[in-house]
């Protein structure tokens, strides 16, 4: 299975005028976690993906998608 996990975190965060630290506070995680998820370095758990989507006020499939 070659699918990777893509995300629109950067664009959605910018749309809401949130910094990585501000989004981290809304989600309740470290800024490093947001940074690594946004840059595709870390694949979030289902729980974390849902929490990020909720903090951005979007359905999870709008924030994360399968690549490839």
């Amino acid at each position, binding site marked *: 299975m070659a699918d990777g996990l893509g995300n629109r975190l950067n664009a959605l965060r910018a749309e809401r005028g949130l910094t990585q*630290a501000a989004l*981290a*506070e809304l989600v309740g995680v470290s*800024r*490093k976690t947001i940074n690594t998820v946004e840059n595709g*370095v870390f694949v979030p758990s289902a729980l974390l993906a849902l929490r990020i989507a909720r903090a951005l006020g979007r359905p999870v499939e709008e924030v994360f998608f399968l690549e490839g």
Partner: protein
Amino acid sequence: MADASDIETADRLSRRRARILPVFAIIFLSQQAAFISQQVEGGTRTVDHVKTGAWLILSIVLLLALTTGGFWLWRKSVRDLLDDDVTRANRGAAMRTGFLATMMGGIALYLIALFEPVGGREVAHLLVTIGLAAAVLRFGLLERRAHKGG
């Protein structure tokens, strides 16, 4: 729930940890030059026991820092942020590297022991050093990468 100040503090401490751990791993490895020369010379002087004691203390501190994340005196909300999903994943990868390095070191020492007698204390010292240094170095480098681009 973490507030903005906790997130800022955790970010600062996490960056510090990412900078410091690889340096500690290198210091830890560089101490081994003294250990090897001590073995060659016999190593029964008081200074040799001090060096071994220093190695033992640093080994325990590094092991605890690696397995718990460190910063034990900070409040729980900050420690939780310092031990988040990414840190745990990086720690898991670092532990795998440490395990692999220890196994390879064990195999190498086994082969050496076929030709040259190696004492149990020396074997334990070398395996702890190899495994711990590899794991701490990898953890530090992964943490540094996690902070890049933010």
